[in-house]
């Protein structure tokens, strides 16, 4: 899917209208099937950029085109269909703790399924081989029928990536896919991801903290700083000085990526009192 952003600005939905936007004046054109890494210090607007492209956040300025169409001028129905062709993978894998891995992976196919088929798949998983194949790409096929809360943080992250592969999306927007993985696993995961995207001709936009991985695995790099594009270059042309400028004041992040917490989100139980 082709993407074109021109002069995009956006702020968090909870932010006041006169606050500083999270991203501003971002203009990027991405060709179909291209693979791009977005790098930058934390708070530089990488995640917001992904959310804007995923149509999860309406830009407050500028123009967004996905596959030659402006998503925000479409009817609700067309917009939902378009969203079904995108895949946004948040940094914390969005997996309910007590769901089984197979169900969580197959949830990536929900946009293309009817309501009845979705309900049926809850009772008997509709495509076990498909889910298993997606998991095998990240080397965790044996966890197919385990519960998500029995997995480690790294395993959960790989399940989240497997869900992306199991979906039929033509644009992958992946936020920090390696934050809970060790270096070996990281290398394997990112090569599985890029390979799978290449096979199906899907566009891949990936934010990364691991600058080295980004430079070696992606042909094109976008550097973000303070909500704006600092550079947009082929990986071979990114120099050490550019990186230092990008991570100015936050050099520790350049060398050591932020660790991710291993905690699963648990709902807070409201206090209950009963009369007996």
């Amino acid at each position, binding site marked *: 899917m082709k993407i074109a952003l021109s002069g995009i600005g956006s702020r968090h939905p909870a932010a006041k209208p006169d606050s500083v936007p999270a991203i501003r004046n971002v203009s990027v054109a991405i060709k179909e099937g291209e693979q791009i890494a977005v790098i930058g210090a934390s708070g530089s607007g990488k995640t917001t950029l992904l959310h804007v492209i995923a149509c999860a956040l309406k830009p407050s300025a500028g123009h967004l085109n996905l596959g030659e169409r402006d998503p925000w001028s479409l009817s609700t129905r067309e917009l939902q269909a378009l969203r079904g062709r995108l895949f946004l993978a948040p940094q914390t894998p969005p997996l309910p703790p007590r769901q089984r891995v197979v169900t969580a992976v197959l949830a990536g196919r*929900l946009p293309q399924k009817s309501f009845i088929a979705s309900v049926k798949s809850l009772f008997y998983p509709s495509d076990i081989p498909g889910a298993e194949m997606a998991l095998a790409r990240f080397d965790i096929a044996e966890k197919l029928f385990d519960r998500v809360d029995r997995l480690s943080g790294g395993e959960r992250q790989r399940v989240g990536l497997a869900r992306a592969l199991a979906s039929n999306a033509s644009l992958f927007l992946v936020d920090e896919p390696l934050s809970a993985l060790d270096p070996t696993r990281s290398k394997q995961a990112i090569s599985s991801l890029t390979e799978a995207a290449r096979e199906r001709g899907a566009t891949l936009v990936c934010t990364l903290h691991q600058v080295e991985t980004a430079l070696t695995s992606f042909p094109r790099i976008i550097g973000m700083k303070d909500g704006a594009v600092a550079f947009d270059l082929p990986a071979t042309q990114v120099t050490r000085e550019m990186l230092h400028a990008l991570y100015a004041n936050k050099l520790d992040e350049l060398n050591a990526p932020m660790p991710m917490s291993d905690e699963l989100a648990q709902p807070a139980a409201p206090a209950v009192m009963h009369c007996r």
Partner: protein
Amino acid sequence: MTSKTPSAANETYRLPKRLFDARCKACWFVFGLLCLTVASFATLDLQLGKIFSADSAARMGKFLLELTSPTADPAFLRKLWVATFETFAMSLVGTAIAATLGLLLALPASKTHDADPARGRGVTRLLLNALRSIPELMWAALLLISAGLGPFAGTLALGLHTAGVLGRLFAEAIENAPQNAAFALRARGVSEGRVFLYATLPQVLPQLMSYTLYRWENNIRAAAVLGVVGGGGLGQMLSFHMGLFQMPETSSILIAMMLLVALVDVASYGARRVMQR
């Protein structure tokens, strides 16, 4: 007032906080509560003296003594067993109805995400509150007209009141559920119903089950007494035999009630333990 000469025995800031402060809301409330209590005793015309009189103490003692001599007549025990099972079934079916109805009402009563218009929220919450504020026994008395005497009225009564209680708790659980799983599906244009089934429900299900089990423990106690107004089960037997002053039978019924309540408590505790795994 605020002169700095240290003439007072205690400097003002060293005095303990006054017990009653006119601006302290809780103090006024407690004061109101005290007035309420005094007024209650004053207006109620309680014959507490009567209860502590020798005559009534003797009657009470005789009564309690008779209550500790249960009957073990086989024919009666068979009837008692049927009524006990009926009570148990009422509590179970009533809770099941309540959980289903509560969940159905909790969906429109909860605002699941920021952009959710939740149009039916106010009306559904009003309905839930109304269901909740009328006790089971009142529901049973009301339902006698349409469901007739017997366990069905009692079961429905339990179901309706508990649906109100559970519906509100369920709605709160759904609103407080972590958003990231639902957000990921919503961002892909998945419809709300399926977002609930695939993201929200698996997260809140343990909580919903534990609320339901708590209410089941509650409902077994309610089911035991619903029969007093004609809702079937042990309560109906109790009010019948007590009305005829048949104390041994009454005593057996009370024992059956306590055993049943204890049994359900144990079962519910066990079920909650299993679910935590």
